[in-house]
């Protein structure tokens, strides 16, 4: 049906004739230097671009007869509106970032002026943040836009972030946004081999109406990235350089020193049988394992880029190198990237090619687990009276009952590394169909290709070696590749008739994702190599038979969609969109799904009745939208268990040297999409000549048919089956505020702040269930997802040292732990968060102070449990245990060590997870043109910046931002966030 409709609309609109035109010409120059500005975009007030200035800054554009003013915009300059008089216009532009007049927002498959947009779209200008020395650009989004929660809880170089847009929309499906780079879908969390220095802007499509056009992939919101394009004019070069150091941030979790630990052991049965002489000598050793592991990391980056072009052909190209060593020894990332974007064509036909390629080498260490072999756990669990090296300079052996692996040896002798190659490319062709004015056909085909090669060496002398076949070390080499093709073909029609602006587009899209992996692990590391050469050929006798693995999966999506926009008097705007997706992931009954969206915007400040207020309130806009989006990704992508979750699958297993098949899941042929519907209302306003601009938005979304592992009776052979059921709600308020409290000729102060409150609520659960408990968290109707459900700890009975627990009603206490006494606590997802940037500029000296905050959540601190449970007597322990109950009458919260220890499932380890962090502070100086004078330099900027220099939190651990992953409970092995100071220089010539 829809195609017929489209045809009719195109037919109707093509009847309109072009209205009469006139020519406007002039020259545009820089206000200060008077130099000509090439490539300035000239547009009408409705945002429609009509031309650009040439290399000498001259322009001549054709505009409708009734046009009274034109807008000029140029990157790095404030927008300006110029009234058309008679004769040539002479326009001067001033450097700045005020793009309020012509700001274009990328709406995904298209773009429109911010003014006419009815959706909720956040825009991040990369130039503001790209100097932050972080390898994975998603981390940079933190605090940049309201509604976008970014968790970056690891300092491991190259690690990605957890991004949640407008709350948690899924329990078992993907929650991360869809990432699109130049029209190509790219894998989320796989950004360490992408250079954000090439990004021009990032659009965050937050509401369903904006994201709906991406259909079944957009429930987590969409992040649309456009990369830099060439600019008309002489070729310009830029060189950016940065160098700096990183240190570890410190921890509030304090461990016993040697004499405390030895005293504690003697008091509790002396498990190691220490003699007084042992205690004397061991007390003198005090190893600070944090000092042993952490060192100063070095970051450096270089980027050389060139951009230029003629009216016909434009190009942008860059080469970059990024090298960061982590604060944990033997970790780091080296990255080499390049990009070429080129566009050429005639008035009628335009073709373009965007490509980036990159290679990175990552050396990392295990994170976020409770494994004794993880060096980052060993920092806490190792004994203070053991040294990392013995007298002879060899790795020392822990001779105690603890027998903790020497963590330094584990870290340094068992290197792991990942080489990643990534290529993202797309080609497009755009053709203005002759005979039908304003009708454009476009096709774009792109790929995201990622190839990883991982190596893990286990040295035969290490603890890890005791866990491998043959206990004589191992070498594993794995390889995987993911190729995703995205092909989009469209017809777009744009037309202005009098006061009416129309635009209609129809699309088809095909996306295919293909994953393969293989790898092997070889054993018997006897020869002195750290590669394949070290492997001993396996026989039944020596047991060194290598293990070979491999798997693969494939999925595809086919879509048809359309959207239409209508504007009247550049004041009233309507939008509608529709998409139909078919996915290979679901059973025959539910293969296809439809999504739609509608929106409207009204510029109230342009109404006549508003005229009296107009000198105070420059802009007042009201917008509304409603739409639906879906989520098709269940579980871990690129596994057959996810891509074919609707089917029961027999997987390969082995027994006694024979292959067998084991049914892994019961399958569910009715599995279908998660569907999110969302409402958005917003006000945008500008006051006092745009000294104050603000956005206030309210949203309310419901995601139904959640992917949900419905618990089965385990007598079926399975604990659960993936199904659809339950509803999650997210509603919230977003504020965005830009203030210019002070602005004089030489000094300005700008505040850019955002705030989000998101209320997540479980609205329904399958089968009329009210409460489902997973370990320490629960799903309860009316409470947020990830709500903790634990017994409330009531302290210690002073009489006997027993731990006391509150009973369910909270009135009485008992010394018997009973899970039925569990009550609800806070949630792991922060409901309040945002960022504040203060920028001070004095004659080109700029100080930018950027804070982020995240408040209102709780964290289960498992790191503490692992050093506070007295059962771990023989390993490193927290100083807190020194305060444990010893004698009747002792008042303390730490029970006697011999009690039945049941604090694990109480709120004792639940902590306030809120924090304020000075995420970035940067002092920069733009050397003025007057000083650069006749040198060949166009621009020169020097800066110094510091990251994460200060964090305010009550959380007792390395970092209140937990490592990424869905788990509400933080496991252990935390790689702390880096405190980094860098110096940099940007040169333009």
């Amino acid at each position, binding site marked *: 049906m829809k*195609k017929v409709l*489209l*045809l009719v609309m195109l*037919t109707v609109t*093509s009847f309109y004739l072009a209205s009469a035109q006139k020519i406007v010409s002039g020259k545009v120059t820089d206000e200060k230097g008077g130099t000509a500005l090439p490539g300035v975009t000239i547009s009408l007030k409705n945002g429609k671009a009509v031309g650009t200035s040439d290399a000498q800054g001259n322009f001549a554009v054709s505009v409708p007869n009734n046009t009274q003013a034109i807008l000029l915009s140029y990157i790095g300059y404030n927008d300006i509106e110029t009234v058309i008089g008679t004769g040539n216009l002479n326009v001067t532009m001033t450097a700045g970032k005020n793009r309020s007049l012509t700001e274009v927002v990328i709406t995904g498959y298209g773009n429109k002026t911010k003014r006419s947009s009815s959706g909720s779209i956040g825009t991040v200008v990369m130039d503001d943040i790209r100097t932050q020395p972080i390898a994975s650009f998603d981390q940079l989004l933190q605090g940049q836009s309201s509604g976008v929660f970014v968790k970056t809880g690891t300092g491991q170089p190259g690690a990605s972030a957890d991004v949640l847009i407008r709350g948690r929309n899924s329990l078992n499906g993907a929650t991360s946004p869809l990432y699109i780079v130049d029209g190509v879908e790219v894998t989320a969390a796989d950004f360490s081999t992408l250079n954000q220095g090439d990004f021009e802007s990032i659009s965050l499509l937050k509401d369903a109406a904006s994201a709906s056009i991406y259909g079944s992939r957009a429930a987590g919101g969409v992040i649309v990235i456009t990369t830099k394009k060439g600019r008309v004019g002489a070729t310009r070069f830029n060189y950016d350089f940065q160098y700096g150091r990183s240190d570890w941030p410190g921890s509030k979790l304090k461990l016993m020193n040697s004499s405390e630990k030895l005293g504690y052991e003697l008091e509790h*049965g002396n*498990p*190691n*049988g220490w003699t007084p002489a042992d205690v004397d000598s061991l007390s003198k050793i005090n190893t600070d394992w944090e000092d042993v592991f952490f060192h100063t990391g070095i970051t450096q980056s270089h980027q050389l880029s060139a951009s230029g072009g003629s009216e016909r052909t434009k190009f942008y190209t860059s080469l970059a190198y990024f090298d960061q060593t982590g604060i944990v020894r033997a970790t780091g990332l080296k990255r080499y990237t390049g990009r070429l974007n080129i566009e050429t064509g005639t008035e009628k036909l335009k073709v373009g090619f965007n490509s980036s390629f990159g290679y990175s080498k990552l050396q990392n260490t295990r994170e*976020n*687990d*409770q*494994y004794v072999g993880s060096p980052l756990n060993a920092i806490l669990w190792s004994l203070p009276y053991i040294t990392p090296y013995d007298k002879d300079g060899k790795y020392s052996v822990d*001779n105690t009952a603890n*027998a903790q692996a020497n963590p330094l040896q584990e870290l340094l002798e068992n290197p792991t590394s990942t080489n990643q190659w990534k290529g993202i490319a797309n080609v497009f062709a755009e053709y203005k169909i*002759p005979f*039908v004015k304003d009708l454009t056909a476009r096709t774009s085909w792109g790929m995201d290709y990622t190839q990883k090669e991982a190596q893990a060496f286990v040295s035969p002398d290490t*603890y890890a070696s*005791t866990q491998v*076949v*043959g*206990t004589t070390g191992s070498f594993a080499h794995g390889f995987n590749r993911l190729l995703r093709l995205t092909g989009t*073909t469209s*017809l777009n029609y744009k037309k202005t008739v009098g006061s009416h602006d129309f635009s209609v587009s129809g699309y088809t899209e*095909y996306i*295919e994702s293909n994953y393969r992996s293989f790898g092997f692990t070889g054993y018997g590391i006897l020869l002195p190599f750290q590669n394949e050469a070290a492997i001993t050929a396996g026989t039944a006798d020596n*047991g060194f038979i290598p293990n070979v693995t491999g798997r*693969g999966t*494939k999925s*595809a999506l*086919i879509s*048809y969609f359309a959207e239409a926009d209508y504007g009247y008097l550049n004041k009233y705007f309507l939008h509608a969109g529709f998409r139909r997706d*078919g996915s*290979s992931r679901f059973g025959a009954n539910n293969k296809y799904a439809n999504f739609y969206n509608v929106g409207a915007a009204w510029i109230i400040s342009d109404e006549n009745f508003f005229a009296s207020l107009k000198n105070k309130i420059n802009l007042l806009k009201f917008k509304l939208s409603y739409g639906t989006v879906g989520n098709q990704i269940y579980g871990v992508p690129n596994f057959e268990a996810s891509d*074919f979750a609707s*089917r029961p*699958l*027999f997987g390969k*297993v*082995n*027994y*006694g040297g024979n292959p*067998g*098949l*084991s*049914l892994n899941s019961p*399958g569910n042929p009715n599995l279908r999409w998660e569907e999110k519907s969302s409402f958005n209302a917003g006000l945008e306003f500008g006051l006092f000549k745009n000294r104050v601009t603000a956005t206030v938005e309210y949203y309310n979304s419901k995601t139904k048919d959640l992917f949900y592992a419905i*618990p089965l009776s*385990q*007598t*079926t*052979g399975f*604990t659960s089956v993936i199904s659809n059921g339950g509803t999650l709600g997210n509603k919230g308020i977003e504020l965005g505020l830009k203030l210019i409290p002070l602005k004089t000729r030489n000094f300005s102060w700008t505040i850019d702040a955002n705030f989000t409150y998101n209320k997540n609520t479980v609205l329904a659960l399958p089968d009329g269930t009210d409460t489902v*408990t997973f370990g320490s968290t629960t799903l309860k109707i009316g409470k947020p997802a990830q709500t903790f459900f634990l017994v409330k700890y009531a302290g210690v009975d002073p009489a006997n040292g027993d731990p006391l627990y509150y009973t369910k009603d909270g009135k009485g206490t008992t010394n018997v*732990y009973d899970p039925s006494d569990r009550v609800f606590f806070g949630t792991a997802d922060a409901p309040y968060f945002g960022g504040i940037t203060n920028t001070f500029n004095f004659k080109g000296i700029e100080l930018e102070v950027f804070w982020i905050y995240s408040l209102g959540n709780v964290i289960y601190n498992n790191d503490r449990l692992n050093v506070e449970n007295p059962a771990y007597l*023989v390993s490193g322990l927290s100083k807190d245990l020194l305060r444990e109950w010893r004698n009747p009458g002792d008042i303390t919260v730490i029970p006697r060590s*011999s009690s*039945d*220890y049941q604090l694990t499932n109480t709120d004792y380890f639940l902590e306030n997870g809120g924090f304020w962090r000075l995420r970035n502070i940067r002092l920069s100086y733009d050397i003025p043109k007057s000083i650069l004078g006749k040198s060949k330099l166009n621009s020169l900027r020097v800066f110094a910046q510091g990251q994460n220099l200060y964090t305010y939190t009550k959380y007792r651990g390395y970092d209140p931002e937990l490592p990424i*992953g869905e788990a509400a409970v933080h496991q252990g092995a935390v790689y702390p966030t880096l405190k980094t100071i860098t110096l940099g220089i940007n040169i333009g010539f």
Partner: protein
Amino acid sequence: MKRINLNYIQIATLLLLTLLTACSKKIDITPQFSLDGSKPLTSLDQADFVLTGTYNSFLGGGYFNSVPTANTAGQTLQPASFSGLPDMMSDDLVETFEDFPNYRKASEWTYTADEANVQITFANCYNVISGVNIILRDVDNLSAIEPDRANNIKGQALAIRAMAHFDLLRYFATTFDRNSTELGIAYIKTYDATGKPSRNSIKECYDNIFADVNAAITAFNASGSSSGDVSRIDVNAAYALKARASLYAGLWQDAADASTLLIDQLSLANMDDFPGIWTDDNDEEVIWKVKFQSVNDGTPYENVFFARGNKSLYRPTLTIDALYDAANDVRHDTYIANVGTFNGIGHDPRLAVIKHRGKSPASATEGGGFVDWKVFRVAEFYLSRAEANFQLGNEASALADLNALRTARIIGFVDGTETGSALLDAIKLERRKELAFEGHRFFDLKRWDKTQIDRCGEIDSPSSICELDHSSRAWAWPIPETEISANPNMIQNPGY
């Protein structure tokens, strides 16, 4: 002009439409690395693969596996529910300071309905059962071409079904009385992913177990041949299961008869060969064992003694160590070693269970930990027949079996002459010594009228709870909380 315009648009639209229809087939994708299980099994080969897959489930942590696997989501506990765990819960093992207290709730009997180890065991046993129920659903339709092979597969599947249910009963039943009307476990005979069954009575469970075992024996006999592969269940293993279950049920004659069939076919190992049973150098006495062939398969007993890291997490109690005539009893040095001071520091003696430390180790503290788990070996049935005959009043036969076993194990053993209760005590003592660290002790104590467990005399242990009373609720495990909430028909055990 206008007419031409329209044509262009129509052509373009037509082009789009063609593109769409051509593409819609592209979303029909078949998995390439897994078998789609939506349809019934189509061949005996497939049934055989699924059977092998079911054997693999015995390598699960809720059955015989003991290695916690570290992954990014933390660690998955592998309680080794029918190898290490029952011994930790008995008076044969005691926790040491070298342990991570992952199993303390089990070994101190403080488990509650949310205990992970209980849930893992429950799920693992039923996972085994679902695998064989798929085979039993389809095998009769596939038997036309190779009826003997079909019968063999069917025999194995039925025996496995009986075995897994019986093992569940060992933990979750409040009593082992043959005709008890108290709740046993749900006996599942059809594969149904939506079932919410209620618990059968203990009597009904036994009825089904014996029915399945007898049907298995019938099927094996019909298949006409025995595989001779000790890694798989054959007719002897079915008889072994029948003997064991009969002994629990107090069906003394059945226990004795089934034992006789086994004793007639397999003999006890001589003293030179005996240690080799435990390092997989030979298969003497073995009726069925579960294969652990590399660390990738896991290990059956490393949560007790982790030889690779020389950690004695649960050590043999001094009591059981003292029961053996260490100088003359071949079992003592095969089962237990003083693994010395640990890297120079530690306790003396520092005992460890070395019985399952690995294939062909050179010294007590070596071994990769992976070694086959001997589920049934003939020695058990000497003791079972002795116990059954004693209960039937055939004291002479009972003593004969007991002496045969003792003579096989102890150098210079002079036949004992026990009678009456002394004979029963001697049978029980020998059972403890012979089957030590094979996952029997807790269940035997439960079977013997919940004899109080007492290991309070042990020293150097972080464990403070050392007694399990006759009247404790802990003799029967709680039904997992997750099962109770998913299945309203499931009733909790008393006291939880």
